[in-house]
């Protein structure tokens, strides 16, 4: 197998070992492969080989309608599917020019922050596990179980939630689910302090993490990093603050940053972000606005400048979809009234659905791993012409050779764990 430009050190050091790491190895967490060039125990170079989980999600996005595709986004970063759901439908709503009601926005903030906690807990737990601390992993996984229960109460699914819809949510949050979230908010801080006391000053853990995989601020920006990885290197960028989407503007929280840029800094940033997420959820739950979760009303959504394919502008004004033409009707109305049934089928049938402007938008959210954005091209029809996902894992995994050079083979798992690579999102 030849890799032009891959491992350039073949010639001067003929005694280097080549080691294959993955694709089926528990410490890679998912299916990815690394070819390591070793000088004894020291890693001279690494070459990531990805694509084992490539399943053509972006191609599928061109063949599924805007509501159906949310099921595919669940399977991108399957550790925090809710965050992906929210990101996808925010992008679709930006394309359509829909503003969701305040209750919907608050619930979306709650589920997105729960997803962030869930993602960070997995990452922290696995970082401990990779460096030999099994208890830490169990501590982190118990609250994840509780989050799955909350998601089950919200939408019936624990793992692949598909909770959002264009202009709203699948279901409103029940009082029961809100109570479960309140319980969770009370219990998690105790677990977090346990985790902190167990690991933060643990000599073995700190020795394995500190000074390993150092990423400078300039490199972080130059290589397009975002999220906790960039913030651990001193970049203050957080999309929830910089370009507030949903109603993040209303909440009081801090952006957690560190300056070390090493694995330990990434660990601390993630840990601190969990506490900030708890603060946001607490504020959102206690101030949850009443009202509908889906967009209501009949006004046209599009601005004046948009136009549709094969239509003149004068026709366009009459055909602009109103809320009732975009939002899936309530299930009760579908089963009991003929109007509900008709509007349901008008939206879900293969040759129906709503119209979209012939425009292109990019909408980004602060997902647990970093900037998760969708670049959607609308062509007037009910399906996206192009549904590009900007996956944080893909950008971050490209860092890996840079971070690991010069460290030992034992550090490979530490660096990999701190980047929190989710291969399903990496390969899509």
């Amino acid at each position, binding site marked *: 197998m030849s*890799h*032009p*430009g*891959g491992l350039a050190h073949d010639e001067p050091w003929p005694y280097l070992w080549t080691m294959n790491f993955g694709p089926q190895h528990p410490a890679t967490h998912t299916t990815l492969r690394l070819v390591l060039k070793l000088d004894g125990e020291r890693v001279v170079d690494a070459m990531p080989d*990805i*694509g084992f989980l*490539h399943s*053509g999600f*972006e*191609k*599928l996005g*061109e*063949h599924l309608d805007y509501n159906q595709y949310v099921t595919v986004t669940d399977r991108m970063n399957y550790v925090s599917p809710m965050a992906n759901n929210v990101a996808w439908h925010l992008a679709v709503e*930006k*394309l359509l*020019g829909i503003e969701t009601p305040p209750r919907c926005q608050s619930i979306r903030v709650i589920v997105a922050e729960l997803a962030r906690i869930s993602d960070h807990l997995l990452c922290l737990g696995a970082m401990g596990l990779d460096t030999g601390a099994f208890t830490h992993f169990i501590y982190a996984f118990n609250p994840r179980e509780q989050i799955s229960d909350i998601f089950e109460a919200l939408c019936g699914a624990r793992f692949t939630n598909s909770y959002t819809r264009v202009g709203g949510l699948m279901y409103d949050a029940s009082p029961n689910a809100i109570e479960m979230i309140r319980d969770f908010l009370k219990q998690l801080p105790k677990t977090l302090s346990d985790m902190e006391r167990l690991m933060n000053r643990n000599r073995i853990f700190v020795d394995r993490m500190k000074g390993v995989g150092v990423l400078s601020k300039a*490199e972080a*920006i*130059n*290589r*397009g*990093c*975002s999220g906790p990885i*960039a913030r651990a290197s001193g*970049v*203050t*960028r957080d*999309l929830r603050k*910089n*370009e507030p989407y949903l109603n993040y503007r209303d909440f009081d929280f801090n952006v957690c940053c560190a300056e070390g840029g090493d694995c330990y800094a990434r660990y601390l940033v993630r840990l601190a972000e969990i506490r900030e997420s708890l603060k946001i959820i607490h504020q959102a739950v206690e101030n949850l606005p009443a009202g509908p979760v889906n967009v209501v009303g009949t006004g046209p959504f599009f601005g004046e*400048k948009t136009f549709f*394919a*094969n239509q003149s502008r004068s026709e366009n004004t009459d055909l602009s979809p109103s809320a009732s033409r975009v939002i899936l009707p309530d299930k009760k109305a579908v089963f009991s009234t003929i109007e509900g049934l008709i509007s349901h089928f008008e939206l879900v049938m293969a040759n129906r659905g709503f119209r979209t402007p*012939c*425009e*292109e*938008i*990019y909408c*980004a959210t602060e997902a647990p791993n970093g*900037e998760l*954005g969708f*670049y959607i*091209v609308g*062509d*007037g029809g009910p399906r996206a*012409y*192009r549904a*590009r996902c*900007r996956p944080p894992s*893909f*950008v971050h*995994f*490209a860092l890996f050779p840079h971070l690991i050079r010069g460290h030992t083979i034992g550090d490979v798992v530490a660096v990999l764990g701190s980047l929190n690579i989710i291969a399903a999102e990496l*390969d*899509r």
Partner: protein
Amino acid sequence: MMDSRVIQQLQTAFPNLTASEFRGQTRVVAPVESIHEVLETLKEKFAFDLLVDITCVDYLYYPDAEDRFGLVYLLANAETGRRITVRCFVNDTDPTVPSVVGLWKGANWLEREVWDMFGVRFDGHPDLRRILLPEEFTAHPLRKDYPLQGRGERHNFPVITRAEG
């Protein structure tokens, strides 16, 4: 927010640049000959130091489209969160655009993905190989003339048997 000052200065430097805005997003279209220069100017002079994404759209079946491929560069400022979208169009049978790996190291994998999925070549890329699909793959599957279910490549992938191993 339309950053009119940036657009004006940019248009003075590059006269054949068109700008537009949609839902608060500023977008400029640059000719492919000057795309590298435009991106470099945006990075060095206007502090768009973060390359968020490079992607491509195949406009083969797009209504009223004139060009085949549209390259999309999403830039941002790491401090303020200001954003700008830069696009350029390519048409040839062997579409080529200049690589920006020299400006942003993060462009490396993003450009490899565009090459893999659309077959757009990046001139000056240090290591332009397929990234998600296997080396043996011949097509570029996100092109619109490639069928959703593939052309049967999957059944012809080389398989390692135990006897060989």
